[in-house]
């Protein structure tokens, strides 16, 4: 889903533009409804036993990431954004995954475990 284009000063064009934004509004409402549905699913799944705690955590985090992806892609317009912002986020993800990786390195420390 692309973002609404920048507004035009020309009244005739603006009419068409407003119509265009209106279409996006429907999309936002659908995504909002999906997020609410996924919230209900997360709660329901937490009462299902997937065998191990790890499996339950994995399922819950998977749904959370799906929800986060929807928020980021549609509400935060990341589905269609300028290259500079993707570049900033690339660095962010590199460092945040590095951070989590360090956490797991500490956990799997062969000396203390």
């Amino acid at each position: 889903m692309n973002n609404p284009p920048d507004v035009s000063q020309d009244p005739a064009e603006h009419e068409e533009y407003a119509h265009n934004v209106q279409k996006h509004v429907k999309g936002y409402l659908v995504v909002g409804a999906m997020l609410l549905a996924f919230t209900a699913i997360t709660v329901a799944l937490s009462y299902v036993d997937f065998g191990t705690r790890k499996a339950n955590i994995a399922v819950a985090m998977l749904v959370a990431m799906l929800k986060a992806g929807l928020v980021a892609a549609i509400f935060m317009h990341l589905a269609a954004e300028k290259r500079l912002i993707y570049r900033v986020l690339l660095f962010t993800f590199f460092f945040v995954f590095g951070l989590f990786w360090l956490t797991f390195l500490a956990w799997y420390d062969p000396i203390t475990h």
Partner: protein
Amino acid sequence: MEIPYTVSTRPDTGLWNAKVGIWLFLASEVMLFGGLFSAYIFLRLDAEPGFWPHGLLNVPVGTMNTAILIASSVTVVLAWAALKMRQFTRYKIYMGLTILCGIIFLVVKLAYEWPQKFEHFGAYIKKSALEKYEPYLGNKHLAEKGLPPRVEISGHLHNHEALHDPNVKEYEIALDPVNADPMNPAMDRPHFFYVPPTEKVANIEKADVEYANMFLPKHSAYFASYFTITGLHGLHVLGGVLVFIYFWLPIGGSRMYRQNPEHLANRVEVAGLFWHFVDLVWIFVFPLFYLL
């Protein structure tokens, strides 16, 4: 001085300036919350069996707050779309709804959820005394089912002076349902609805207690991380609400709309990006603390 590129795009970045600014800020926010979440994972993985509580938080209330935050994310994006379509009245309505959602979220957190925790009490029993309190813990039953043991007895503390006075030798507790009826299989999993402490009273000798306190940040690694992360998240919600109120009032809203409506739309978009990020953090906080 005129600030450049508030509406028009800067040729080298292809963006108006505030958009670049907010994304750089959000990148730093990812690292801030990332650090706290990785600390949470570290503490949780290292917790001994039974020491990371489940089902202490109120799931229906948490679910409701999640829904409120999602709804506010929708209304803020609708407020922005209304500005793009130059419908100022609709903008005011949607922005007003967003502010309302943010305030409800904060009130539920600060006036209901947190105080309920502060009034709750829990005592970690020494390993050597676990057997003695078996009627409240039901660990034989849990072991048969292959579930982690219970090491804490919790409920409503009757004698608050016991927390400070060394001459008081016992804690007198109105037990939580799980400690009042620990063999009941219905207690194996946390309840969906919050069940208050029962009428059943237990006396726990201080000599048998490893550590006891109200459900404050210092109570356990769980509550330390819970209050730190939800507290910082709550501060973000507060910050967002204050900015939205400024955009809603005439001083930051209609005045700027008359001067340059696209500038106001961009401001709302940037504040909205921040708001969506706050929503995004909550999407992870909710299952991690309330459900798992």
